[in-house]
């Protein structure tokens, strides 16, 4: 090629050698396998063990699942079909129980013609959460978030629209008093009035108002009692209302635990530690067996509501700890900055501290929600028909007595899909928040 140079400086190569293929062990799939699976003897051993484990599990379950029978109306029919298709005693799943009863596992006893109501409520709930969870959305949607609990309640339980409306009015009254009467009776007076007046209103006025409006303008949908709730609907209602109702109490407890007022601090710590120190199942039994003892003689409301109350108290302690983490994570300068602006305690909390602290607490709150949602399975021990409870009811019918795994697999998959999506969201949020702060 370049002969001149070759003559002058014989040992310098002027041109590149043509590029060679990497050796076979260093390219394509083999390279990937070598680097990722068999980089050392320990790694190779682990790979083989893992692969054997996967093979072992699949070989025992895959056929059972894939050849499962979907179309039958009872277990005995399922067995008859199986004997016909695969021979006597073959080991296959009977998914027909899911096809036959999936609506009960999802909705419980909720009337079939009203299934649109919980679905709509769920969509509305998602829509209401969206502006809180994703901050790209217009702030106006927050109005929807405020209205959503009342609308969802009305959709789920039905009845006259005036009941939830009259309750919501109480919050409006409180907010108005707080906003407009500060100039007249001062901040403290306004705060006290904003708490007291709505309570008095709810106690004495809300019922008659709702009744009167209901008589004159009967707008409403078919009322559905708590006893009809079941399956995943029940789990979601308990989980979601537990988290939402516990937010205010949780924030107050977190502030109380940070407070330097001795009594308030100690009571908050006591409350949080007692709730967190005792398992949920004990609290649920307290709700089902003991709550009636603690309330005025004669008062009595249904088990689902008692469970929601207990779950709310329970999760408020956990929310308090999450929010406390958020409060502690805020740089000290934020507190000092608020003080230096001359804001009082409540103003600084409301305008500076809590908005930031709650924002960084959202991943923690989402994980609490996942935990709580999973823990709703424990209500089966107090006789509520959650998914596991309903699976017991389904097994008690003569059609499906004797079926076991199929129901658990379906329930497990549903829980997994929901919780996995939530946990992915909270991880995404954590990543996003981390970049915000660097």
């Amino acid at each position, binding site marked *: 090629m370049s002969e001149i140079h070759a003559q002058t400086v014989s040992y310098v190569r002027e041109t590149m050698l043509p590029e060679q293929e990497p050796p076979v062990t260093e390219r394509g799939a083999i390279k990937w396998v070598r680097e990722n699976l068999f980089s050392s003897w320990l790694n190779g051993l682990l790979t083989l063990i893992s692969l054997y484990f996967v093979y072992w599990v699949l070989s025992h379950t895959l056929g059972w699942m894939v050849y499962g029978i979907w179309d039958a109306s009872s277990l005995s029919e399922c067995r008859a079909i199986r004997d016909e298709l695969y021979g006597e005693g073959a080991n296959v799943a009977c998914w027909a129980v899911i096809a036959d009863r999936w609506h009960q596992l999802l909705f419980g006893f909720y009337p079939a013609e009203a299934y649109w109501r919980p679905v709509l409520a769920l969509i509305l709930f998602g829509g209401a959460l969206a502006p809180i969870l994703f901050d790209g959305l217009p702030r106006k949607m927050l109005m929807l978030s405020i209205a959503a609990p009342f609308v969802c309640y009305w959709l789920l339980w039905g009845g006259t629209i005036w009941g939830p409306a009259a309750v919501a009015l109480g919050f409006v009254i409180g907010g108005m008093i707080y906003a407009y009467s500060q100039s007249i009776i001062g901040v403290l007076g306004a705060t006290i009035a904003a708490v007291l007046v709505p309570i008095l209103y709810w106690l004495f006025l809300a019922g008659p108002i709702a009744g009167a409006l209901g008589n004159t303008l009967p707008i409403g949908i078919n009322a559905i*009692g708590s006893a009809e709730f079941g399956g995943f609907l029940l789990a979601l209602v308990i989980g979601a209302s537990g988290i939402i109702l516990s937010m205010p109490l949780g924030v107050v407890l977190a502030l109380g635990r940070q407070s330097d007022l001795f009594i308030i601090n100690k009571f908050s710590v006591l409350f949080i530690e007692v709730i967190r120190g005792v398992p949920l199942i004990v609290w649920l039994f307290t709700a089902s067996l003991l709550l009636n003892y603690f309330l005025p003689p004669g008062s009595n409301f249904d088990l689902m509501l008692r469970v929601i109350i207990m779950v709310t108290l329970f999760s408020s302690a956990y929310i308090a700890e999450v929010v406390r983490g958020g409060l502690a994570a805020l740089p000290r300068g934020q507190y000092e900055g608020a003080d230096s602006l001359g804001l009082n305690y409540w103003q600084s909390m409301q305008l500076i501290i809590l908005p930031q602290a709650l924002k960084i607490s959202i991943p923690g709150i989402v994980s609490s929600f996942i935990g709580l949602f999973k823990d709703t399975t424990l209500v089966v021990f107090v*006789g509520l028909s959650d998914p596991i409870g309903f699976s017991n009811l389904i097994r*008690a019918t*003569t059609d499906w007595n004797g079926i076991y795994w199929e129901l658990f697999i379906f329930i497990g998959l549903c829980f997994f899909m929901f919780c996995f999506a939530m946990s992915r969201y909270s991880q995404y949020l954590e990543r996003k928040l981390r970049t915000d702060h660097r």
Partner: protein
Amino acid sequence: MKKSVFLGTLAVAGLAAGFASAQTLAEVQARGSLNCGVTTGLTGFAAPNASGEWEGFDVGLCRAVAAAIFGDATAVEFVPTTGQTRFTALASGEVDMLARNTTWTFSRDVDLAFEFVGVNYYDGQGFMVPRALNVSSAMELDGATVCIQTGTTTELNLADFFSSNNMSYEPVPIETNAEAQQQYLAGACDVYTTDASGLAATRATFEDPSAHVVLPEIVSKEPLGPLVRHGDNEWADIVRWTLNALIAAEELGITSANVNELAAGTENPEINRILGTEGDLGAMLGLDAAWARNAIAAVGNYGELFESNIGENTPIGLARGLNAQWTDGGLLYSPPFR
């Protein structure tokens, strides 16, 4: 804490159940439906079907009481209760009556302050073993591993039975019937013990029922009956006499098919009194004159109820046994309607 209790009370004021006081009938009538406590699922006795309606032997009794009060057998709210929560649910007024496989015992009647109004099923604790074990009597069970459902009288009976016969055993307590069944079939216990009716129901659903035998020994008396709270005798009377009406109806040959025909008037004065064409038994209970007629028309007489839910033509296939009329050698004996 107070705030959320308060808000909850308020928000669901419309759903609140009635007060636990002495006017149960008035409350039930005001509410428009009967709250009836049932099990969290027991084959043949209480379970929801594919369209969510409760069915079963105990459920039938609830429906009969609802029919007697309202003339409408669907005016019932079924409240599933576990072995642990049932008594609290009744005592607190969450349910008006329990029709839930509850054994009538002294301490429940006296100490826990409930009123058993009768017996709708005479049961007893039995044992089921795989045929392959070659056991023919419960006396041969020394050293066996026994699956029991917790939270019932069965575990006490079991302890008494084995210690009084100087035998040892290993209890395996299980929370639900479904798990007990699974454990037993997998051979994790040699024996499954529960009420004989439950054993029959469980055995009927096995792939091969003939591979399991129910041993002849019945080691306890389990009179299962509906119960109400102490202190409201009017209400107890309604439940008691609805049950008695179903039993008497079978004795007298009143069925859901012929009840309307018989209600036109018959030669038998007792039938006439039950069906309200003679006398005023309904008014004495504070109910409509057609109370028993409605109950029988809704669910049939005791025999029909038995046959359609747990009888020999159902998969459960229980024989009448002790639950036959006294005229057929059983224990069912309704006091006279007069």
